[in-house]
C-alpha cells in the first residue's frame, strides 16, 4: 500500500516537491530516496513556466519550472549517444530517444508553459526532476487545472496515505 505511489508520477506543487524528505539509500541506482510523509516517491509531474534555461549541447539542458509556488529545477539529459548508461540498449532505440530529447529540448524556451515528467533526483542537496519527457502546453488554463489537480490529489490521495514507518 505504501508503495502504491512509488511508480506513479505524483503531482506536487513546487513548494511541496522541493521539501521532500531525502534519505540516503544503499541502492546504487538511486543513491537518495525521497518520501513525503513517509510515502516513498520516485516520479513526479510538474507544470509551470520556464524561467531559466541552460543548455550544454549534447550533454544536458537544465531549466527551471515555476509553478507559482516555487521553482523546480529540471534536467533533460541529451547525452544518450555517449553515455555508458545507454550503451547496453539497442542503438536504434537510443538514437530515437536521443532525437526525441533533442526535439523536446528545442521546445523548452523561456516563458513557455511546460509539463514535465520524470524521476525525482537531487543535485547538491536540492530536489530536481530528471526529465523523462517534457511537453509544451498551449492552453494557459492547464496551469490552473494543474494547481487544482495538485490540491485534489493531495487532499484525496497523498495526504490520506497511511504513513510509512
Amino acid at each position, binding site marked *: 500500500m505504501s508503495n502504491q505511489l512509488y511508480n506513479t508520477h505524483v503531482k506536487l506543487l513546487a513548494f511541496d516537491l522541493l521539501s521532500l524528505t531525502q534519505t540516503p539509500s544503499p541502492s546504487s541506482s538511486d543513491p537518495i530516496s525521497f518520501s513525503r510523509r513517509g510515502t516513498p516517491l520516485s516520479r513526479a509531474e510538474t507544470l509551470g513556466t520556464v524561467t531559466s534555461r541552460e543548455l550544454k549541447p549534447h550533454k544536458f539542458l537544465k531549466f527551471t519550472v515555476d509553478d507559482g509556488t516555487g521553482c523546480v529545477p529540471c534536467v533533460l539529459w541529451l547525452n544518450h549517444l555517449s553515455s555508458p548508461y545507454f550503451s547496453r540498449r539497442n542503438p*536504434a532505440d537510443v*538514437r530515437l530517444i*536521443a*532525437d526525441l530529447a533533442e526535439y523536446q529540448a528545442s521546445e523548452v524556451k523561456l516563458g513557455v508553459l511546460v509539463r514535465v*515528467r520524470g*524521476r525525482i533526483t537531487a543535485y547538491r542537496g536540492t530536489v530536481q526532476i530528471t526529465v*523523462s519527457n517534457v511537453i509544451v502546453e498551449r*492552453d494557459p488554463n492547464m496551469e490552473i487545472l494543474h494547481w487544482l489537480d495538485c490540491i485534489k*490529489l493531495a487532499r484525496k490521495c497523498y495526504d490520506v496515505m497511511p504513513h510509512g514507518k
Partner: protein
Amino acid sequence: MEGGKMVSISELVQGRRPLTATSTLHSPPSTSSHTPPISSSSSFPNSNLPPSTPAGGVTAPRILTPLNHPSYLIGTLALPSYLHSTPALPCCSHSTCFVFSDASSTVCCDVLHLDLRIIGNRIRVLSWNFIPSKCGGFLEIIRWSFLDSTARLSRCSNLDAFPLVLGSSSDSKDGSKGRYSLRGVLESVSPVSVIPCSVVTRTSKSGSGTNFSTPSNLRGFLAQIMVCECELCCSKEGLMSLDDPRKGLRGHCFTKPQILYFCGSGSSWHPLFTKLIGNVICISHLKKKLVFIGKEESQLMYVTTGKTVLRVLSMANQELPHKEAVIKGMGECGLYSGIITGIYMQGMVINLDERVWLLITDRLLNPPHSLRVGALISVRNIHFLNPKFSWTEMLILGSCFKTSIIVECFSPLETGCHKVSQSQSLLGKFIDSLAFSARLWVLLVVSCFRKKFCGILTEKEILGSKHREGLVQVFARSHLPSSVFQYRYGVFMEFCKHDSCGCGTEPNYDQLKLVAPISNLVHHCEAMWMKNQLEGDCETMVNNNEFSQLSCGGRSHGLPITRILPSEAIGVILLGSLKISPSGRLQLIDATGCIDVVIPDLPSDCNSNSIYEVNDYSLVMEGMPDHLDHFGLVEMEPFSCRSIFESSPLVREISLTMYVYFHLRKSSLQKFLVHPHMNLKDNLKEPEDGRFHMLHVTHKFPVLQKFQKDQVVSDGLSMLVEAVVLPWDLFLSGKNPTKVSKDQKKEPMELYNSRNYHEYVSFKRCKIDHASSRLLSSGLTDKSSVAGMGLCGHLSDCSSANKQYPVEIPCLACCRSGCLVSSGSLYCTEAALKFGAGCNLGALKVLLEFKSESFFKYQLLQIGGYYITKHQNKDLFCNHRDFDYVRGGKFLITSGTTIWSLSFSYDEIFHYTDPSFDPALVTCPLHNSQQTELLLQRSTDNCHEMCSDIHLHLPADLKNELDVDFTVLEKDLIKTAPKLEEVANVPLCIETAMTASMQSFQTDDSAFLLPEGNLVSLQGQVLAVHNLNHTSLDAHSSNENYGDVRQLRLSRGVTWSTCIHVLMDHHIVSIFGGLSEHAYPTGFGSGVVATFHRILELGGQNRLMLTPVSFIAINSMKLNNDQYNAECSNPVNVSELYNFVPLDAVSSCLISELIQCLECKPMQFHCRIVAVHFLVLEKNRKSQPKVPCRLSVDIPLASFVLDDGSSSCCCWANAERAATLLRLHEEFPLKAFGSSSWKLKGIGIDNACRTTIYHLDKLLKKHGRITVKNYGSISDSSSQDLMFSVGSNDLLSSSDENLLKFIILNACIGTFWTIIGDVMDSEAVGQLEEHVPKMGMTMHSMQSIWAKEVSYVNPLTEARNMVEELLNR
C-alpha cells in the same frame, strides 16, 4: 371526271394556310391507269410519328389541316427553267425545284415517285399538301393523274426517251457533236454550280474561223455514272442494243465511274436526276471533253449537248437492291433513311430519328422544300462520322458535293420549310472549311452564343457579317486545332476527285468542349446529382462530415453531401461575365442564368464588362442525401445537341447549392472578350504616376439584410468596408524610374533621403516635441520647398515648414502585370506624425461605401489587406483630415475609384534594376497540382506579393522601423476588438438592423437582457453547419446537461437559425447565428477553414454568436473528392467531437479510488499515458465505401498504462479510441522524429503535414498485421522494451520498426486525456487474459478499465468542475 372542287394555286397562295387534301387517297383510283403508288403522309404508322418537339418550336406541331371536301388542282409540272414565261420564283433563285403552274400562278413543288412523262404535261393533282411560305408557297404532290389520255403519250417517238432540250429529237444529224452514249447506274449528282467562263464560239460560216468570246456564267451540275466495262458495252453496237430495254441488264457489272456534265439548259434536269440516283439510265448524244478541274488536274467527262436524250432502264429498287451497310462512323459514304425530328440553325442541322445529326452547311446543297419535320427522307452519299466530343456521343451525317437528299414521304405535320441562306457570310465560309464534327461544334457554339449573349450582344456581333468576323468565329478559331481546317477545292474537284480531297476524313485532334449556356450546365449537374442519388452511387458521393456526432441539443441533423465535378468530367467550357449579385455574391452569368463562383485570386482588374472563358474549374454541389426532386430532370439531357439547339429555355427551380471555383493563375480564366460597348477607360488598370493613399482594410460589413428583399431597388443597396487610412502616401514616378512626373513637380515635395527616416523614427520613439524635431530636421531640409508642399488641402494650409515634416522612404513598385516597374517613395503624412508620436490612431478609421456599380471593388477587398487608391483633387482621403479626426467618416467609392492591392517586401532595391522581372510569372507554391486544399483568399502572409497588384520593394535597412510602425498600428487600431457599443455605432442602417436583432434576444431570465461579450475574430475549421429551428432551440435550452445553459436559454421568436461548429486549436466552438443565407460566402460549409470576424463571445463555454456586422471569410477549403487527399491532409483530431458528450452524467474518479470502487457504472479519468503495454494493429478489411476518407487501420486491441498522479492502471481500448490514444489522427511530428525522418519514404513537402495514421497505413499495407509487446518498463516511456511481430512473412525493417517505436513514444508524451471507461471486473479481465497469454503477454496485476470514450481534456471546464468539487467538500 373526278368529284371534288378544283382549287387554283392563287387561291392557295392567297389563303396562306397550310393545307392537305388527301381524301382521294382513301378512294380507289377511278380512271387513271397510271397512278403513282399510293404514298402519302397519312400512311405513316403512328410509331414513326415525329416527337412532339419540333424545330425551334416549343409546342408540338399540329397535323396539317385537311380540306373538308375533295379537291384537286390542274396544272403543268415542269423542270425549273422550262417555264420561261413564268416569273422567276423568288424563293428559288437558283431553282432546283420542280415547278407547278396553272393558269393563275406558279409555285415550287415536289412529287413523290416521279414518272418522267409527267414533265411538261398537264396533270390533275389529286392528293397534295400545301405549305405557304414568304414567296407564295410550296406544293407537295402525293398523287396525280394525267389529265387526258393524249398527254400520256411521250413527246418523243421512243416511249422511254426524254430529250433534255424541249423540241429536240434523238435523231441527230450531227453525229460528231454527240456521238457518245453512257449506260450505267447513276450514282451521285452534284449540286448545281455556276462557273464564270467565256463561251468561245467559232463562226463556221467564214472560212477563217473567227473566234468570238462572250463572257457568261455556265450553270451546270455533274453526275457520276457507273458503267459496265464488258465488250458489249464498250462497243458502239452494244450500246445501241442497250436501247432495247428488253435486252435487260443482267450480266453487266457497273463498276467504272464516268463523269457526266449537264451544262447550260441541261442543268434544269437537276431535280430529276437527284430522284434518279440508283437507277440504271442511258444517256446518249453526249460529247466527250477533257476538262481542267484544277490547276493541274484534268478530267475526262461527257458533256450534254442540245440533243442529249435520257432513257431510264430500270428502277433501282426493282433490280438493284442496295446493300445494308454497317455504319462505322469513320467517314465512310453511304445511304441513310430516317424521319426528320428536328431542323435547326436555318436548316443547316437536321435531326433524324432523334439520334442522328445531318449537316447541310454548304449553301450549294440547297435541300428541297419538302425537307420538313416529320418527313421521311433518304440521304445518299452521306459521310458517317462519330465525333470525338467530350460531353456526348452521337452520329453525324456529313454532306458533301456528292450527297443527295430525297424526300420519300411528305410530312403530315404543319411544319415549315427551311432554306439555307444563299448569301454566305464569313462564318459560313469558315464553317465549310472545317471537318464535319468541327462544323457541328461551331454550329453548337453559334447556338450557345446566341442564347448566352441574347440581349447582351447583337446578332451581328455574335455571328459577324460578310466582312467582319463575329464573336463565334473568333472563339472557334482560337479553339479549333489547325488539323480540322480543310482546304476546299470547289465542286468539280471535290466531286470528281472526291476520295483524294479528304472529304469525310476526321483528323486527329483533342476533344472539343461544349460551350454550354449556364442554365444548361446547372441542370446538367443537377441531373448528374440525381442520377447518382438514384443509382446509390456512394463511391463518388462524399460524405465529408466525419463529425456526424456533433449535435445541437440532442437533435440529429441530416448531413449534407458534397460532390465535386472536375471540368474534365463535365466536358464543357464556361463562358460568361463576372457580376456581383445583389446579395453580394460573385457570379458568372450569361443571358440564360448564373452560377456562384469562387476565385481565390480574383484580379483587381476584373470587371463586369469582360467575358471570361474558364476551361479548368471544379464544380461543387452540396445538398442533402434525401434530396431527390428529380421530376423531369433525369430525362432531360441539357448537353444534348437538341437542348443546345432548341430555343426553349430550361425552367427549373434549382435546389442544390452549387458553385464553381477556379484559379486565375492556372490560366483557366482567360479574358476572352471585352464588350464592344465598354468604355476602355474602365479597364485602365496600371497605376501610372502620382500620389496614392494607402488603406488597410479592417473589416467588411456583410450585405445589409434590410435591403435584400428589395433587390430591384439597387440604389438603396450598398456595402460597407471599414478601413484605416495609413499615415503613408505612396508616390510613383511612372514608367521611367528616373523621371519625376509632372504632377509631382506641380506638387513639390521635399525629397528626403532614407537616412532621414531613421532620424524620424528615433525622434518619434523618444517623443521629442515639435521644437526639437524641427531642430533635428532643419539641417536636412529646405524650408522653402516645404512651404510649397501641397500634399492635400489640409497640408497646403500649413503655412510654415516648421509644423510637420514629411519623411520619405524610397521604394520600387512592381505591377502584377509586370509592365510597370516604377520608382517611388513613401511619404509620411502630417497626420501620421501625430500618430507616430503616440496620438490616437483610430482617428483615421473610415468607412468605405460601395454602391452596386462598384461591388466588384468590395469583393476584392480583404480584411487585413493593404490597398492604394489614387489621390485626386478634393480627395476624400485627404479632405477627411479637414474634419480633424472625425470618427467614422463615410466615403463613397464610385466606379471611377480604382483600388489596387498592395504588398511589401524589404529588398536591396537599389541593386534591383531588371525591368523584365515579372512577378506574375513567379508561381505561387501554395497551389500544388493535387489541389487538396483550395486557398480561397489571397493570403496576406505567404505569397501576397504574387497576388497583389502592386508590390513595393522597400529598403531592407528600414525593415525594422517600418515593421514596428505597422505593428504599432495593428496593435493600436486594427486588432483591437471593438466594444459592442462601438460596433453599433456604424451607420444608421446597420444600427437598425442590429437593434432589431438584439431585441429578439429577450431571455426568460431577466438578468440577461442582451447577450454581452466582446466581439472577437476567430479562425477555424468548420466541422458542421446545423440549421436550427424553434423546437430544437427549445429542446436545447431545456437540456440541463449543457454547461452554460443560461446563456443559451432563449425565448420564442428568437432569430437564431444556424449553429456552426468550428474546430479551433483543438477546441470545438459553436457559433450561433441568425444571418440570412446571403451573408455566408459562397462555398461555406463543413470542411472549410474560415475566419469569423467580429463575432460576439457569449461568456465562455466556447459559444459565440454571429451579429449583423459579422463577416465570414473563407480561408481555405479542403476537397474531399479524392480519398487519398482526404485521408492525409486532414490532421484533425477526431476525438475532439467527444467534447460534446454530456460529461456530467459520468462522475470523475481517481485511479487510486478504483480499488474501492467496483461499481459497474462508467467513470471519468483524467490521465496521461505512461507506456503502451500491448498493441495489435491490423489492416482494416471491412471496406467502408460510404466513408472513403477513413483509413484502413484497425486496432482490435490495445492496452495502455495510465497515470493520473494517484496511481496507475491498465486501460484497454480498441478501434477509434485506441487510434485516438495513439494520436494517429494528429499530424505526424516529423521534427521530433529527428534524424530518422529521412528514412520515411516519400517524405517531402507533400508529406510534411500528413497524419500519423497515413504512415501507419503504409506499414500495414506491407505487413497486414503488426503486434507490439512491451517487455520493458511500464512506468517510464523511454524504458519501454518493445517487441514486434508481423503478419506477413517479411521481417519488419529497422526503419519500419523505428517508425512504430516512435509512434508509441509519441503516444506516451501526449497531453492529458479524459477517458470515460468501465472498470473491468474479474470476469472481464479473465476474458482478456484468455486472449492475452496466447499473445505471449503476462497480465499486470494493476486495475483494468475499458475505454468507452476518449477526448482531450478541456482544461477550463475541468478546472471549473474541480473547483466546485473542492469547494463542496
